[in-house]
């Protein structure tokens, strides 16, 4: 129970502790006041006759024991159900506690102004509870419950209204609201407790009726935690005119998210949603480009909220909006609920595996905020780099710098509250040359979860002359031969190979057919899980969103349905062992927890996405790998590819290649390409370079879903060798 946060548990339990302490502190208050208690006389009303009739008709020592047990459940029931609700649904939990507290204090008004004695007080009925206490002393459980029951009734003048009735009705109402099947237990308990109060002579019928009616009329929870009408539309993230210092923005996004999520989750609970989650996402991104001599820049500011609800455990609905004010969030929540109700009409029972409650803030590491670097500085860098590529034969030059900051606040009806602040930076440089063999291209690109320090590491101006020289040389180079050959792929090409032929086919939504109409299916069907030899023993591919894996575009602390970042194997020593999953799909392959792969483009609908899907480094030093290859081709930097909808048959081509002869790199070749069948290809891998040449590459533009979403993914890879591969020369 304490998996989420001990502090949070204590904090949220506080209203309940206050209730218990108040109850204890108020013992005897009614009796100490000078007001005359209402003491009913025997035989003066029909209800008294009912109690007498019940006691005379049903009286037996065994039934008295059982009824004492029910009567003593008064507080244990409340405690147990409060813990159950705290663990399962925080919104219901809070409403439950507010209702209990409100009922107790409304009752206190009656007890102080009009104290009322119970039936046994003046002999209207027998006090069987007292009798029972004496008789069942040998049973520790009964004895304890009877003792608790006795404590509760130590104040003799608090019969009207019956808190026994009020509490047990609230208990039933909220447990059934949590899950309908709980009615099988909670309704018999409710009936048992209500009957026990009559049978044991502790309450009149009128006390019970008042308690039950009080609860249903009061509906305390609706007022206690109702929509906060005082909330006004909050103006967020007012940017500074002079700089982009955004320290205040973090708090603003988080605080607005907290306020709006309360309204959303409360609305969802009122409308009987089984589950709800809310995300407020603030995205600021900038692209600065220099194309030939021409500068261009684009900045995107995007703030919006996405709301997802599950209705009757069988219908999902999602709605998003870019109008983040109170009224519209409530309206958008209702829109999601309307869609969920529609889905529920034809839906089957939705599985939704458990995830611990998380309350956390996480800021991704960065040394230099890329959005704090002026556009002018970026232009200067790009002008410098593209200027160095200006040579005869060069027909196009382009440099780009990408800066993104994503702040997102997540809250769900289970109690998770997560704020994440992610900074991503990327850059690319590309040059095209025209010569005898047509137009040839060379490029570099990298995208990371991190700051502007990436630009220092990449040194675009320093790399520009080499790229230019290679592009010009490619126009003079021979084409790639056609046939079969051993192939060594550069690390970035291996990264893309992993993305297309492993990352996509392990997306479980795709596997299960949910993307069949658009993106396609997968050859990695569930019956192959744990059985298929996907690759050779040298091939181990992880799905790792943790920071320990590196600063990738698939690195985060929690996914977009509140699941903590994890590291799992998709392929272990060649064996296919795992999928990218969500809470809604994990159980379909026998898993009890999602591995946290639900991600959304801005505030749109989360879908299963790659995190960092990476080939683990091997043992080979890169130079030794070349030396160990007597005859082959090195292929470097992707130029294009195609792959079928099941991710089975593919072909890739690269920007440049080199012949490998007798363990040495030979002449350059242009447009090298290769093709294969995914498991055959990975089984042909006999060497992976070691950590020294392993790089976590960023892929910023993976498209998926309808309406289409774009997502950044990470792929760690090192140069690897594949034996006897079909090769060809791209035109």
């Amino acid at each position, binding site marked *: 129970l304490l998996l989420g946060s001990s502090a949070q548990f204590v904090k949220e339990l506080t209203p309940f502790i206050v209730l218990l302490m108040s109850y204890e502190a108020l013992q005897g208050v009614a009796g100490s006041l000078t007001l005359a208690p209402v003491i009913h006389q025997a035989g003066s009303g029909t209800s008294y006759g009912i109690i007498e009739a019940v006691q005379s008709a049903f009286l037996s020592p065994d039934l008295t024991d059982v009824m004492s047990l029910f009567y003593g459940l008064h507080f244990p029931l409340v405690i147990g159900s409060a813990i159950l609700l705290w663990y399962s649904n925080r919104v219901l939990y809070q409403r439950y506690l507010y209702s209990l507290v409100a009922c107790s204090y409304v009752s206190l008004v009656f007890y102080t102004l009009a104290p009322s004695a119970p039936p046994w007080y003046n002999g209207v009925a027998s006090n069987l509870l007292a009798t029972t206490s004496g008789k069942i002393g040998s049973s520790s459980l009964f004895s304890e419950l009877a003792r608790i029951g006795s404590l509760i009734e130590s104040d003799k003048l608090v019969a009207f209204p019956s808190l026994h009735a009020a509490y047990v009705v609230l208990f039933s109402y909220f447990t059934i609201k949590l899950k309908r099947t709980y009615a099988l237990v909670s309704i018999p308990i409710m009936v048992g407790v209500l009957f026990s109060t009559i049978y044991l002579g502790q309450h009149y019928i009128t006390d019970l009726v008042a308690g039950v009616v009080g609860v249903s009329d009061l509906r305390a929870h609706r007022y206690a935690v109702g929509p906060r009408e005082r909330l006004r539309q909050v103006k967020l993230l007012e940017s500074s005119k002079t700089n982009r210092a955004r320290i205040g923005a973090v708090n603003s996004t988080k605080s607005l998210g907290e306020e709006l999520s309360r309204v959303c989750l409360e609305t969802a609970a009122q409308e009987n949603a089984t589950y709800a989650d809310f995300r407020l996402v603030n995205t600021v991104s900038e692209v600065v480009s220099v194309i030939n001599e021409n*500068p261009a820049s684009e900045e995107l500011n995007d703030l919006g909220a996405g709301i997802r609800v599950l209705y009757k455990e069988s219908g999902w609905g999602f*709605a998003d909006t*870019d109008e983040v004010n109170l009224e519209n969030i409530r309206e958008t929540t209702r829109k999601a609920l309307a869609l969920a109700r529609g889905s529920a009409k034809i839906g089957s029972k939705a599985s939704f595996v458990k995830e611990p409650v998380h309350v956390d803030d996480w800021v991704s590491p960065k040394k230099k905020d890329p959005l704090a670097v002026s556009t002018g500085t970026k232009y200067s860098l790009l002008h410098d780099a593209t200027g160095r590529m200006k040579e005869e034969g060069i027909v196009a030059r382009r440099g780009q710098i990408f800066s993104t900051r994503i702040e997102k606040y997540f809250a769900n009806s289970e109690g998770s509250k997560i704020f994440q602040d992610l900074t991503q930076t990327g850059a690319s440089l590309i040059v095209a040359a025209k010569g005898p063999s047509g137009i040839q291209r060379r490029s570099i690109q990298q995208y990371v979860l991190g700051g502007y320090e990436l630009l220092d590491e990449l040194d675009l101006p320093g790399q520009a002359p080499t790229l230019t020289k290679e592009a010009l040389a490619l126009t003079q180079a021979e084409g790639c031969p056609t046939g079969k050959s051993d192939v060594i792929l550069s690390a970035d090409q291996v990264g893309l190979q992993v993305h297309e032929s492993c990352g996509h086919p392990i997306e479980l*939504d795709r596997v*299960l057919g*949910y993307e069949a*109409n658009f993106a396609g299916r997968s050859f990695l069907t569930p019956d192959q899980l744990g059985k298929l030899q996907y690759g050779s023993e040298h091939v181990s591919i992880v799905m790792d969103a943790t920071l320990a894996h590196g600063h990738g575009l698939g690195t985060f602390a929690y996914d977009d349905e509140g699941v903590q970042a994890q590291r799992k194997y998709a392929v272990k020593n060649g064996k296919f062992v795992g999928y990218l999953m969500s809470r809604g799909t994990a159980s379909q392959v026998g898993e009890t927890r999602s591995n946290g792969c639900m991600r959304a483009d801005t505030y749109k609908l989360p879908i299963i996405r790659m995190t960092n899907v990476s080939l683990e480094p091997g043992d080979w030093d890169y130079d030794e790998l070349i030396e160990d290859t007597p005859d082959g081709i090195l292929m470097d930097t992707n130029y294009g590819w195609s792959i079928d909808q*099941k991710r089975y048959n593919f072909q890739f081509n690269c920007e440049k290649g080199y012949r490998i002869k007798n363990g040495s790199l030979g002449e350059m070749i242009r447009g090298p390409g290769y093709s294969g069948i995914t498991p055959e290809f990975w089984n042909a891998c006999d060497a992976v370079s070691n950590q020294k040449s392993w790089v976590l590459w960023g892929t910023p533009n993976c498209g998926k879903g309808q*309406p289409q979403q774009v997502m950044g993914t990470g792929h760690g890879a090192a140069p690897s060798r594949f034996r006897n591969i079909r090769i060809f020369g791209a035109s």
Partner: protein
Amino acid sequence: MSQSSTQKQTSLAQQGHRVFDMVRKFAKGAQEIEATLTSTTGEFLRFGNNELGQSQFTKSRTLSIRLASGKKQARTTTGRLDESFIQKAVEKAVDQLKTAPEDPDYLPMLGRQKYPTVNRYHERTVEESAETKAGHVGHAIDLARKNKLLASGILGTSVDEVFMLNTAGLEADYKGTGGYFSLTMDADNGNQTGAGS
């Protein structure tokens, strides 16, 4: 585009005028100014494996600002319509305008135009309930089950609005609804497929 004006269209137009006033205020030095405000709402029911997997509603607005001086022009976009963000977007465009190359083929912004009325807005598309749409999807899934196939696809409806203003006197708006249905029927785990839309 039409220049017809229903009550709902006026709402986007009012927003557009408010936004355009702000853009003009901040676009110092620009000879021509244009603001285009677009609003898109969509409702999409995606299904696969004979189940309705996603029901989503999406709503967004975008402001595109175009400035021109001489034969130079610059454009910026923003999804935030607060004054501070509009100011930032305009200032960005002003900066770009200073460094932009001249476009020898540049044509000045269009002045006031009279467009024929185009009515592509159908209330029924917007008002169809989620339950009804789910029922349509359910019908396709039932057909698939009866024939031992797996259905996947999408039922989508959308409302697109555009409002454009410029300093040359153009004021135009368009509002239209759209809908589409795409269905793929799979047999043998996707090895046999038929699709239509």
